């Protein structure tokens, strides 16, 4: 992963999202230890306090849990929490954008729904 400092997302958010993605990819599995703030700092070339902030965010969201003196570990329902969060945040926002754009282009509701259905069947077709 490459940190984008000019991006509008704070670096600690980029760090926590990266760890989330690695959990979804199963690079880190349940009860496995994740990187420490110092390892992250070294890997990503960032201040260790920023890395710690990214980890703390995940602990607050109960995606990681802390073992005193040992480090941070992946919680048992980490994947579900991440998926639910992404569904409610990312997907809702994307749908809002799609609806706004459809409105802008005078696409009707039925037309939009059928476009989504076409896209879904395309995806299914590719999978088979």
């Amino acid at each position, binding site marked *: 992963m490459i*940190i984008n*400092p*000019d*991006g*509008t*997302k*704070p*670096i*600690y958010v980029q760090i926590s999202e990266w760890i989330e993605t690695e959990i979804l990819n199963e690079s880190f599995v349940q009860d496995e230890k994740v990187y420490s703030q*110092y390892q992250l*700092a*070294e890997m*990503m*070339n*960032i*201040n*260790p*306090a*920023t890395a710690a*902030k990214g980890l703390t965010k995940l602990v607050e969201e109960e995606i990681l849990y802390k073992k005193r003196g040992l480090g941070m570990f992946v919680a048992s329902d980490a994947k579900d929490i991440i998926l639910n969060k992404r569904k409610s945040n990312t997907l809702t926002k994307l749908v809002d954008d799609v609806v706004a754009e459809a409105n802008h282009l005078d696409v009707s509701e039925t037309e939009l729904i059928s476009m989504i259905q076409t896209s879904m069947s395309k995806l299914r077709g590719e999978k088979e």
Partner: protein
Amino acid sequence: MKAITCTHLTKSYGNKKAVNDLAVSIEENKITGVIGRNGAGKTTFLQLVAGFIKQSEGKIHVLGEPPFNSLKASANTIFINDTMNLPTSLTIYEILKMGNEFYPNWDMELAERLFDYFSLDRSQRHDRLSKGMKSTFNMIVGLASRCPLTIFDEPTTGMDASVRSDFYRALLKDYLAHPRTILLSSHHLNEIEELIEDVLLIKDGTNHLHVSVSDLKEYGIGVQGESTNLEAWLKGKDVFHKRELPMNKAYAVVKKEQLDPNYKQAGLEVAAVSATDMSMYLTGTSEGGIDDVFK
């Protein structure tokens, strides 16, 4: 523990106050970026911290005591900038050996390895080095000294892009292994944004804002839309920056906490503001930009 505390710190040169009633406290073992425009008072502030000059008014404590004329402060502080006076009768390698004798935490092995990595010539004299090479050498002195308080004032002047990024990487790695209080001044926040924990914005010789980098990133928000709508919406809000855009539109930056939800009804769009842009708007002199000069 606090590494640096100052209250009402003022330094006057004639009737110009280079540092003016500055109050700040900086915690131990953090990397703080000191950011400000040219002539804002960054270097004077750093010289006061290093104990190179004495304040005209106010108080300053560094590592527990006033730094001016303090042997403790000079043994525990190193101040690196491009006007450092180093003896011209010594070769740069001999200067390293002097550093080794003076600074208790000096790491000679690190100094030598960096020396070789950046292909410095041991028999060179400091005043014969090119601008970039001089900065590189000074940076090696700053890192190898491992001083509890390490101050880099515009350390990358004249360095090429690759040496600059090597320097920041070296600084981070050495800081991870040996945490210490580091002040790093720069015009370019974007270059050091990932490296630092806190930002101290200096404007007109005083502490304009002292926050963490992530808070700076979330400090302001950009709002854009039809000029008239935007103008109306901005009433009663603190505007950091405003500029006209084509097609009767305008862009403004306000405090994030002042973003009331009715911006959507006004047909406005919002976008985050990068820390670099935010620091530029905060340390700027007027709301307008260069375009106002040509009006």
